């Protein structure tokens, strides 16, 4: 991972700049961070139907040659590690030598993300959901979390611990939108219901901005300005019929990581206890809940004990979680901000660095299909 770049983060609809400019700025910032000239980039990897396609970015950046231009299927943030997977695969397969994974979003320019479509007639699978008023990710995912919490007697304090950790970490991150706006248990408990079991602070922000990460072959690591950070593994997908419409996936109360997580550990050659710090995508806290369980950090019936603010806080918690503030409190850049934070933890320049972190995991987009996860490691892990 040669370099990372972000723009200023804005509340949704408040970017003064066009979306493509945000994406280009983030890429230029990542180039500067990596000490790499923009013209060297020969591959583009994005996700979530990003509008800033590779050919347009390559032309704007003056890239000498375009060799890889790739979109990870699926909505939301399911590809925030998938874009890393595809970029790394392209490099490992000799398809490109310098790939940028990126995501840009300006919702003032293009309309609000995740809002229910205002249409009079619906056909296909939507004919069996939309007429009942089921139109948003929040509603769909609330029902998955509700069933999981029912099956395993999960208390709502588990969700609260996730939100509190994200907000507390944001207080030392100057880039975070919620920097200077701490969250207390009382404020969480008093916040309004959105879609049960989710209160306001269980739901991610919606933001404008862009983020970018540059990957190069591992042999170049020594020539780069930052301490080396390697991709140890990156996997994506879903279990049998995970994407079956209208709630008919056989394993419903799931974040969809059961197969993806196992393959990730096998690829990286590690186990959950080897992970020093975790970034886990919060579209909603209920997704983090199931994703942490499905990545093997605790058993489903241990959640009420494991999910505590003490366990999740850097630097010394048992599993420091979302150490930049994450989607809840740093910025909702569809998870790419979390991927950047996972890299910073290996480089040692996180705003909430975990001392001696050698293995850092990022989990992307729980409950969508496909989902993805990746693991980064320091020089010592090779």
């Amino acid at each position: 991972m040669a370099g990372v770049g972000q723009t200023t983060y804005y509340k949704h609809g408040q970017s003064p700049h066009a979306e493509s400019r945000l994406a280009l700025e983030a890429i230029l910032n990542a180039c500067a961070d990596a000490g790499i000239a923009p013209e060297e980039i020969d591959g583009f990897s994005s996700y979530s139907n990003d509008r800033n396609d590779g050919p347009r970015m390559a032309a704007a950046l003056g890239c000498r040659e375009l060799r890889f231009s790739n979109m990870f299927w699926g909505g939301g943030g399911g590809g925030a590690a998938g874009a890393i997977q595809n970029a790394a695969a392209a490099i490992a397969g000799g398809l490109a030598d310098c790939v940028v994974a990126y995501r840009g979003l300006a919702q003032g320019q293009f309309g609000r993300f995740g809002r229910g479509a205002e249409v009079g007639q619906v056909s296909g699978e939507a004919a069996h959901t939309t007429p009942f008023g089921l139109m948003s990710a929040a509603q769909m995912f609330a029902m998955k979390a509700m069933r999981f919490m029912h099956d395993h007697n999960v208390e709502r304090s588990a969700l609260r611990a996730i939100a509190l950790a994200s907000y507390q970490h944001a207080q030392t991150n100057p880039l975070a939108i919620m920097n200077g706006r701490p969250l207390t248990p009382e404020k969480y408990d008093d916040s309004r219901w959105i879609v049960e079991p989710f209160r306001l602070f269980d739901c991610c922000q919606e933001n404008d901005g862009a983020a970018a990460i540059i990957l190069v072959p591992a042999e170049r690591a020594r020539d780069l300005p930052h301490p080396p950070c390697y991709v140890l593994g990156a996997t994506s997908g879903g279990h049998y019929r995970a994407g079956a419409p209208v709630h008919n996936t056989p394993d419903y109360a799931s974040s969809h990581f059961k197969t993806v997580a196992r393959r990730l550990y096998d690829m990286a050659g590690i186990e959950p206890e080897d992970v020093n710090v975790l970034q886990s995508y919060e579209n909603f806290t209920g997704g983090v809940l199931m994703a942490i369980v499905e990545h093997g950090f605790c058993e489903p019936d241990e959640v009420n004990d494991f999910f505590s603010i003490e366990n999740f806080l850097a630097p010394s918690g048992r599993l420091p979680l979302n150490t930049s503030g994450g989607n809840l409190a740093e910025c909702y850049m569809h998870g790419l901000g979390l991927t950047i934070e996972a890299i910073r933890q290996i480089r040692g320049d996180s705003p909430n660095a975990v001392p001696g972190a050698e293995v850092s995991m990022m989990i992307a987009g729980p409950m969508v299909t496909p989902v993805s996860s990746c693991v980064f490691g320091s020089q010592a892990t090779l």
Partner: protein
Amino acid sequence: MDVELLKPLPVPTPVSLPFWEGLAEGKVRLQKCDACRTWVFYPRSRCSCCLSDQLRWRDVSGRGTLYTFTIARQPTSPHFASDTPQLLAVVELEEGVRLTTNLVHVAEADIRVGMRVKACFERVSPDITLLKFQPA
């Protein structure tokens, strides 16, 4: 001036028409695969288990259990603002398929995952009846 927004309505297709016609008659109708005996929802051309095209419509009881639910207090579209709080639910029918629905004739405090429910039919236009559920 108050303008009442019309809620989105399903458009029956050649494949799904028997489902919607059944609801209009007060019946829950599902497809069952003649090849592997799997019940199928939503309406399909081929079985979602074995890919056979031998799917036959059957009338079923419309009874099942509440698989999961949410109480949505923030409408995502102005069309449903007057229905807030929305009682959104997934019901698992006795045949094993799951469908999206709304709970009706139930107090919020009485809703429980696993509770027994039965079909009720809400006519929303001359051609369309929606399948909703109430405590059995």
